[in-house]
């Protein structure tokens, strides 16, 4: 493993371990306050955990276990951090900003400038070289910040929601730049945006409450989520329970019947999940004709427009929140409103059942 980390910080309820292979980009997904920024801070050396250790390619970044007290300062770690705000040094020009890393490593002014120009070309920002940061737009500043981080030749690149502060026109441009420069480079990108995960990450790690709850190759996690946050990102309904013959049984006693992979037989009693898209859910008032499978009593919590459909959010008690997408006409016919008790019926052919 080219990078591995293990750390815990009680004050922030944080306890995680992570490893990266050479050239791999990992996306960290999770709700606010889950500990994503804490993770990056610990790796970069800006935040000291209570215990743990980390190595990059054989070099020990820190070791606070079992009485040892080794802690490399941030400037010795070879990890460059890129945040939501570009944080370009306001008193230096763009090219001097990018040359900062090489100069700090001891390069001469001329050599550093040359490296800087190269990286500025790499991020399509050569024309901005002589401007001052105050003269750049948000998107331009972020691209320069990427160039500055890369010019420092880091072993591991850390990106903390780099697209979050950009407007809708600038984000795709930066995403394309990042896709290009992150190839063959170890990087950890913290993000809210599923598009970032799909485009840039080989692997995805989902964190909640300071702990890792799910990880795996990007497509696998987002198409077959096992955590509620990942399901939310993927736009799927998710219920957890124990596997049975037909599907899963939730702790509340509801049975979700569905399809599983042909090559895998469910082991009854094991933990499992059922995932289904909102479009597979129909809404009925009162009892339903013919008592089909997958019929559940729920209470509507919210109605919102979703593309050309209406998304009905409802609460299924301790089984969590479920969503259904129906046409506006259907919603009007049914007279739906928050607080109403209705029945959700899910087509079992569209429910995926797989192990947790």
């Amino acid at each position, binding site marked *: 493993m080219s990078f591995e980390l293990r750390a815990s910080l009680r004050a922030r309820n944080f306890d995680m371990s992570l490893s990266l292979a050479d050239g791999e980009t990992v996306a960290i997904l999770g709700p606010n306050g889950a500990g994503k920024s804490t993770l990056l801070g610990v790796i970069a*050396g800006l935040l000291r955990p209570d215990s743990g250790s980390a190595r990059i390619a054989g070099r020990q970044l820190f070791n606070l276990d079992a009485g040892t007290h080794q802690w490399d300062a941030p400037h010795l770690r070879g990890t460059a*951090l890129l945040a939501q705000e570009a*944080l370009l040094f*306001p008193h230096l020009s763009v090219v001097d900003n990018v040359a900062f890393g090489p100069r*700090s*490593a001891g390069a001469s002014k001329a050599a550093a400038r040359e490296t800087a120009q190269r990286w500025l070309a790499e991020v399509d920002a050569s024309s901005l070289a002589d401007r001052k940061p105050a*003269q750049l737009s948000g998107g331009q500043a972020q691209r320069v910040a990427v160039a500055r981080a890369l010019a*420092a030749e880091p072993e591991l690149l850390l990106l903390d929601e780099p697209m979050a502060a950009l407007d809708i026109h600038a984000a795709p441009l930066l995403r394309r730049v990042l896709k290009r420069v992150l190839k063959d480079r170890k990087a950890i990108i913290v993000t809210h945006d599923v598009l970032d995960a799909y485009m840039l990450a080989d692997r995805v790690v989902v964190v909640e409450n300071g702990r890792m709850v799910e990880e795996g190759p990007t497509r696998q996690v987002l198409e077959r989520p096992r955590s509620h946050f990942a399901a939310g990102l993927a736009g799927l309904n998710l219920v957890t329970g124990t596997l049975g013959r037909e599907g899963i049984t939730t702790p509340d006693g509801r049975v979700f019947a569905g399809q599983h992979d042909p090559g895998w037989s469910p082991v009854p009693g094991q933990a499992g999940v059922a995932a289904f898209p909102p479009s597979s859910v129909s809404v009925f008032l009162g009892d339903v004709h013919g008592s089909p499978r997958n019929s559940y009593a729920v209470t509507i919590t919210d109605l919102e427009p979703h593309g050309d459909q209406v998304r009905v959010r409802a609460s299924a008690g301790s089984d969590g929140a479920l969503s259904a997408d129906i046409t506006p006409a259907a919603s009007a016919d049914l007279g739906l409103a928050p607080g109403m008790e209705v029945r959700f019926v899910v087509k079992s052919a569209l429910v995926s059942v797989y192990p947790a």
Partner: protein
Amino acid sequence: MTPDSAHRKESMKTTTGYHGVPRWIYAVAAAGGLLVVLPLAAMLLRVNWPQFVPLITSESSLAALGLSLRTSAASTVLCIVLGVPLALVLARGEFPGQKLLRSFVLLPLVLPPVVGGIALLYTFGRQGLLGKSLEMAGVQIAFSTTAVVLAQTFVALPFLVVSLEGALRSAGNRYEAVAATLGAKPTTVLRRVTLPLVLPGLASGAVLSFARSLGEFGATLTFAGSLEGVTRTLPLEIYLQRETDADSAVALSLVLVAVAVAVVGLSYGGRRRAAAAVQA
């Protein structure tokens, strides 16, 4: 900040026309302004204008002015050399006794300068804490220009520390964190990121220190003595002249006021530039 949002901020300042200051405040502010301006005007009226130039260019006057400018410049440099590390440590450091240290550093601001002079005497005087050993080493501080610089530094240091500490706190240390992750050693971060970013605050603090040093009287009198060309700074010269030559005293006072106004004008310009830099 994007170019268009910067423009928006500017236009909000000039086109609204509503500044939210009640009218009666102007009356009270005028009273405050008069309190400061009237005594200066009264002094201006007493100046013996025909004799003005000969009075301020007399040998003793020029000696005092030259000494004042030289010692104030030296003490400002000393304030910067000692004050920058102090401000950094108070703003960014974390160590036991930090709050206590800040209180002590700010003490000269509230201490009567004469008390400061007495304290310096007990430290550096011939019988003083350090003075005894210095005397044996052949270093004489009392009655020397060095004593003047020490007295001025003692009273002016807090001005620089307070000004710079404020600037350091509001700047935060995000840029320093980024610089560190880019591989810059702590000294490099200080040299290339921290200090350039707080330069306006440092400049404004230095100007205040210079102004305070220029006007220093009580500590100098008690600690350094009063000898023309060596320790008799402009305030001391004015104090002496008023015994016999009121015209000379008033004329020299006017010179001191003029220098002070110039210094304050520089400081205000610096503060405006600092505010603009922070907004960007």
